[in-house]
């Protein structure tokens, strides 16, 4: 283990464990008003009329007419309104806000408001949508010949469901308006996204908007785009009322109206010749919900991942992201990857059966290695440590022997073990880092020789403050206590880009390392010094061309090999997860305990996605289970034997050899679990989550 990997107590450990850390709902602010949002109860309608009762003194209604700038929230595109523009497009869309001193009174007023809708037929099925928001496609090799010359063509459909983030802290924001300036504070991943959005909605100059991140109680992607919407809403409310306005969602409200992982439907074809897979043709549809938010980029990543970690010579991949009258979906750890990775991993299992091989053998035979072309005709520039990772996975899980043993089972209890091999491309997709983000960091040395790291990077629990401090302290050769990292405030920090895409350590951390190196060379004790460092695009990358969907979408990849073992009671369909093992390459871990914590938490989320996290929408477009009693996530009892290991594979372009880590572990859990289930049940499976009810259906069908 390298010395930087040695764990230290996390910087935010004590304030958080002692209950002293202040999250947005914990702030005590003079003269605060409470805001509550009136949300659409129907999925698709024009609003004919809104009947508002007489308001008591000091209570306000805030709606689209109060937006001083443009009534739209900039995310990637600008179609999301701040408040409804007269139509509603999903259940939960914000129509207006009521704000006032006493939250109980606010809630009473909210109940008295009547919205008269002119309802229209909502589109709830993504396959019936007639609005395509985005579509992309690419080919590689000669896919047409591969299919023309095939001995056999196999076709299958796959489906993945919603996943709700379940950050333990709901979405929340406080807006205030002082001396011509809008100040927004709250729980958010990307202060500068909020800044850009609020600027536009308010029609203000940059220096008239200030965004401050407070302590964040989890995010997992769920606080990437939504805070821009809520940020605009509280900014407008503060502007109208002249008072600070706080909006904290209820849990049910949060599940109803905040983004989720996109549900997807995927059609895969494979050409087989002489026992080899010679071509893949994938056609995928992602359900965006009612507005575009981050969907173009989610779909791009999904398509890049569509053929997994395998070296297919001939490919066609097409996909579209379509509109439905449901909650807009957005970023969730893995960002479009888990859907297609689920499909290709399951498909490989099924193809292996066709060919007469164990799926692991087929996967091992086809896995990419350094120097291979990627699906999008880029390159895997660096070492791909799969052989060593698979060996390690076997050592800790014993999967090879177990697969043999589980082949011939009889009796009531049946075991299965599933294997998945996946990656996560590190950093923003395509040329985003170079063309859109252009990250900047600033390192300041104070006259007392303390050093402050100024970035827009946010700590949502993943340990960013701690690893940034370690990078600076190790580079400068000064004690950790001399390094200051605070929650970002856009009045103080430059725009180093969003905290997303597993880019913060690899990209922003590298900028900090370079700035620290410069400061070290020029260190003047007792003097104030500043170093600003700007993003430089790695020159080894094959330029990304979005119009052709070709080139290197990422400089490097993080890899993982996963195994999940189950034991199914064929009488009751209850399933025990006997063990879950993950092996990861995330470059050099900058802090081993932090990395292991990321891997374990992410892996468990992935297993939840595969096994139990079921979110349903009824025929009116209402989410059926918008509470913790009905949307079930893993507890401490569900996967008691969860084992994670890392292999070290230094990435030279990252700080101290580190690369992207946060999202990777959420990708491989679902396919490993569902393959374990098909192993145990002796059938091919095609969807996630695969619940106990699903297992029951399979068992009943087998009986017939």
């Amino acid at each position, binding site marked *: 283990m390298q010395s930087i990997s040695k*764990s230290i*107590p*996390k910087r*935010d*450990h*004590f*304030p*958080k*464990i*002692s*209950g*002293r*850390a*202040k*999250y947005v*709902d*914990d702030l*005590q602010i003079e003269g605060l008003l409470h805001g509550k949002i009136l949300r659409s109860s129907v999925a698709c309608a024009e609003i004919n009329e809104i009947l508002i009762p007489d308001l008591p003194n000091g209570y306000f209604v805030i709606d689209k007419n109060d937006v001083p700038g443009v009534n739209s929230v900039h995310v990637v595109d600008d179609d999301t309104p701040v408040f409804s523009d007269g139509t509603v497009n999903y259940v939960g869309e914000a129509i207006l806000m009521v704000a006032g001193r006493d939250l109980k009174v606010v809630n009473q007023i909210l109940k008295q408001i009547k919205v008269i809708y002119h309802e229209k037929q909502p589109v709830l099925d993504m396959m019936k949508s007639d609005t395509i928001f985005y579509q992309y496609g690419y080919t590689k090799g000669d896919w047409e010949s591969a299919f023309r010359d095939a001995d056999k063509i196999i076709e299958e459909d796959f489906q993945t469901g919603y996943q709700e*983030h*379940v*950050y*333990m*802290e*709901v979405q929340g924001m406080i807006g205030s308006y002082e001396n011509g300036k809008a100040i927004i504070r709250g729980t958010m991943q990307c202060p500068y996204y909020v800044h850009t959005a609020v600027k536009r909605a308010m029609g203000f100059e940059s220096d008239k908007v200030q965004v401050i991140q407070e*302590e*964040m*109680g*989890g*995010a*997992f992607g769920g606080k990437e785009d939504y805070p821009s919407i809520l940020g605009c809403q509280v900014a407008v409310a503060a502007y109208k009322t002249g008072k600070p306005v706080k909006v904290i969602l*209820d*849990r049910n409200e949060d599940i109803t109206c905040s983004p989720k992982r996109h549900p997807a439907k995927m059609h895969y074809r494979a050409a087989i010749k002489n026992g080899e897979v010679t071509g893949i043709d994938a056609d995928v549809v992602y359900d965006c919900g009612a507005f575009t938010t981050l969907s173009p980029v989610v779909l791009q990543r999904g398509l890049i991942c569509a053929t997994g970690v395998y070296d297919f010579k001939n490919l066609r991949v097409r996909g579209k992201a379509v509109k439905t009258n449901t909650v807009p979906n957005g970023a969730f750890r893995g960002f479009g990857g888990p859907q297609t990775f689920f499909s290709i991993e399951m498909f490989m299992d099924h193809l292996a059966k066709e060919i007469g091989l164990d799926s692991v053998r087929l996967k091992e035979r086809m896995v990419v290695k350094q120097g291979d072309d990627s699906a999008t005709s880029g390159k895997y520039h660096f070492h791909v440590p799969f052989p060593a990772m698979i060996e390690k996975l076997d050592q800790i899980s014993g999967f090879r022997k177990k697969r043999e043993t589980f082949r011939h089972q009889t009796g009531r209890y049946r075991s299965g073990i599933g294997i998945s091999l996946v990656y996560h491309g590190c950093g923003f997709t395509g040329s985003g880092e170079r063309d859109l983000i252009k990250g900047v960091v600033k390192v300041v040395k104070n006259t007392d020789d303390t050093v402050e790291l100024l970035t827009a990077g946010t700590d*949502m*629990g*993943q*340990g960013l403050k701690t690893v940034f401090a370690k990078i600076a302290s190790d580079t400068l050769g000064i004690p950790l206590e001399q390094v200051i990292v605070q929650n970002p405030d856009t009045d103080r920090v430059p725009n180093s880009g969003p905290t997303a895409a597993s880019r913060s350590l690899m990209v922003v951390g590298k900028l900090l390392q370079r700035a620290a190196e410069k400061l070290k060379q020029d260190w003047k004790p007792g003097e104030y010094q500043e170093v600003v460092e700007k993003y430089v695009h790695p020159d080894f990358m094959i330029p990304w061309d979005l119009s052709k969907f070709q080139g290197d979408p990422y400089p490097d990849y993080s890899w993982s090999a996963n195994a999940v073992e189950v034991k199914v009671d064929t009488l009751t369909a209850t399933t025990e997860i006997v063990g879950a093992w993950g092996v990861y390459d995330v470059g050099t871990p900058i*802090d081993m*305990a*932090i990395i*292991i*914590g990321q891997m*374990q*938490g*992410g*892996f*468990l*989320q992935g297993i939840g996605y595969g096994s139990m996290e079921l979110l349903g929408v009824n025929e009116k477009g209402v989410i059926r289970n918008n*509470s*913790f*009693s009905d949307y079930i*996530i893993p*507890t*401490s*009892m569900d*996967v*008691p034997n*969860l084992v994670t290991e890392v292999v070290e594979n230094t990435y030279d372009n990252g700080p101290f050899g580190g690369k992207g880590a946060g999202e990777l572990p959420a990708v491989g859990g679902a396919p490993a679990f569902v393959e374990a289930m098909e192993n145990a049940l002796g059938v091919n499976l095609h969807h996630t989550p695969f619940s106990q009810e699903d297992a029951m259906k399979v068992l009943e069908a087998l009986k017939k």
Partner: protein
Amino acid sequence: MNDLIHFTLNGEKVTSDRSANERLLDVLREDFKLTGVKCGCKEGECGACSVLLDGVLANSCMVAMGSIEGSEVVTIEGYSETKRFQALSDAYAQTSAVQCGFCIPGMVLACEALLAKNPNPTDAEIRKGISGNLCRCTGYNAIVEAVKIAAREGKGLW
């Protein structure tokens, strides 16, 4: 005018004039500014709002003020003054078990309730003891490990 409700809060005698059907969670956060007590769901499902009520772990969002007359309530703010807390905190630090931290005050009190009954719990007993407290970040291993370390290094405290 309501009758006052008397109870002990983190070792001090206090009164509240809130009505009997209000949630203890809201009173602790709003009137006593004890914001270490977190709200994750308000329906008794997540454990973020856990407190010790007469030594027993309770979801304060499900406790009505009317039911706590004469009771002893301990929140993370009070508990963090104790040696036992120090042992748990040191152990959590060793395993980096605090990620976003939102579940953690409640989780620590769940660990206290467990160790008070069972100073040397097995893995399975720990997992059962914290099963009412959801954590979305850690995958729970680091917390289970921390409880074992605290039990070992804090020997004699429980």
